């Protein structure tokens, strides 16, 4: 893009409106005037979730709720950890389950969605249009409504109480195929034809050409799938009976739910602390993967 021109005539275009100076310039102030307030809005939830976890009870119940904590305390975490030590299954077990399940789910669902997206976008076969339409429309079905039939399917497949039940139902992340297909569509056919002429097999084409070119979308899907898997307490509730097969998300909800808490006030604090603990991995994954999204977006083959 810009870097292709030498620096001395980089900004001497015919009608350079002063939009692209190299460093900071007073004319850029207008961008910051718009963007900074909006980005504060975007950051608000993160600030809120972090500060809530450190709020003492009186601040948690203050009305109207305040965003920032005034007297930070670690009591919420202390309460949470004192609960942890009293349960039968060690917390490391839940943690291990969650990490394994999340890792496998993310990897497998990227594989499934990206192969499907590749086929839907670049292959020619009869049911293509119909399959994509079905996928898009089926995305909108209320997930709650299929809970019971899905339970029956899982029961019939003998998957109840198994490790696989954590992974298989969430593999087809609704938006995965949809989003990836749009990005594969953006790859010009010439690139694929060139690779085919050079003798690349279909699999190689997919792995070496398609995948690197849709990295931003893959990273996005990875973030979304990670969250769906990591925060999933539902599967542990519905399909798992053995305590040691359940996930951290499930465990933390049992700790914070009203039935197990002696007093509701302490429960709120523990819930806030648990929410922060559950949220942090999401944030870390986001920070790790956003570089993939941003950097490849600015100079990838998506042109």
């Amino acid at each position: 893009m810009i870097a292709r021109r030498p620096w001395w005539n980089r900004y001497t275009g015919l009608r350079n409106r002063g939009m692209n100076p190299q460093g900071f310039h007073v004319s850029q102030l207008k961008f910051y005037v718009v963007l900074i307030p909006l980005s504060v809005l975007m950051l608000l939830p993160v600030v809120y979730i972090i500060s809530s976890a450190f709020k003492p009870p009186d601040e948690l119940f203050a009305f109207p709720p305040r965003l920032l904590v005034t007297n930070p305390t670690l009591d919420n975490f202390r309460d949470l950890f004192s609960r942890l030590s009293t349960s039968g299954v060690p917390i490391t077990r839940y943690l291990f389950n969650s990490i394994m399940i999340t890792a496998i789910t993310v990897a497998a669902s990227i594989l499934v969605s990206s192969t499907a997206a590749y086929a839907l976008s670049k292959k020619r076969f009869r049911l293509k249009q119909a399959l994509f339409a079905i996928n898009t429309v089926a995305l909108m079905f209320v997930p709650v409504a299929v809970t019971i039939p899905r339970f029956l399917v899982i029961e019939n497949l003998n998957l109840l109480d198994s490790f696989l039940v954590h992974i298989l139902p969430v593999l087809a992340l609704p938006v995965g195929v949809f989003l990836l297909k749009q990005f594969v569509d953006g790859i010009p056919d010439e690139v694929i034809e060139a690779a085919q002429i050079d003798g690349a097999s279909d699999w190689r084409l997919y792995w070496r050409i398609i995948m690197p070119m849709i990295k931003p979308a893959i990273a996005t899907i990875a973030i979304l799938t990670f969250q769906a898997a990591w925060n999933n307490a539902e599967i542990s509730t519905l399909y798992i009976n053995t305590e040691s097969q359940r996930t951290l998300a499930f465990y933390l909800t049992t700790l914070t739910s009203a039935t197990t808490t002696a007093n509701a006030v302490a429960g709120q604090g523990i819930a806030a602390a648990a929410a922060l603990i559950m949220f942090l991995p999401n944030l870390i994954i986001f920070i790790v993967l956003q570089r993939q999204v941003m950097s490849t977006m600015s100079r990838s083959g998506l042109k």
Partner: protein
Amino acid sequence: MTTVRKPARREVSLATRESLYGYGFILLWVIGFCVFTALPLAQTFLYSLNTVSVTATSINLDFVEWANYSRALFTDPNFIELLIGFSVETLVSVPIVLIFAMIVAMFLNLKFRFKGLFRVIFFLPIVITSGPVIRELTEQGAASAPGIANNPAVIAFLEELPRALRSPVEYLLTSFVLILWFSGVQIMIYLAGLQKIDRSVYDAAAIDGASGWETFWKIVLPSLSTVTVVNAIYTIIILSHFSENKVIRYIYDQTYNVQGGIGYASAMSFIYFGVMVVILAVICFALLRWARRSSR
């Protein structure tokens, strides 16, 4: 004759091979989809035509034809109201998300310092709206701004408006922040779309003396038309799936309610599904027509 037929039998034709590979690549997904989505969906449709009672050992079906549907549509006092409210909210939210995402993406596509940081920040809602964070926030009332709706000036303003406009505008004012949080991925998609526009097109437009305003309407917007359709579909899907969605909440409550039951909840799900598909179809149809016209 045999010599001619022989290679034809051994080598499958190119088109067949192509489609075989196509099916091969999509196979995993199709199996997963059939087992965990299509099959349960069919089952749910069956439930929606029955009164379902669950006992410890079995599920009993009692065929009632369309009674569940007519109950949801004509008897239930809440469902239709919630459904209409949600449809209006969707129709308001989608354009807002699209316009907001497009404006922010165009800002982020410019060159200025800390651009990278801002891009990250505007992408951040992706970890907020799909995680447990948003539940916490909506429970605390942080996602809406009730203060705005209680402001006397705003109340006076709302009363000035015609009745049909009032609730969408009020929704817009109170949930503006929430709507913006839904635009993380859309901003990214728009950015990718903007980066596909070749710089030389801008240069050519500048040489022809086009102003920035004209460049936007004649170059940027038409180039983003297909991306806009994608974003619109994505937004509708995300909104319809949102766990704090009132209609979904209601259906969930009814599923385990003595008076409701699985059959009734299934029927409501299908009605909701139908409405969402119609909304999707309407918005897509309008946008696609516009996209086709502007790309010409």
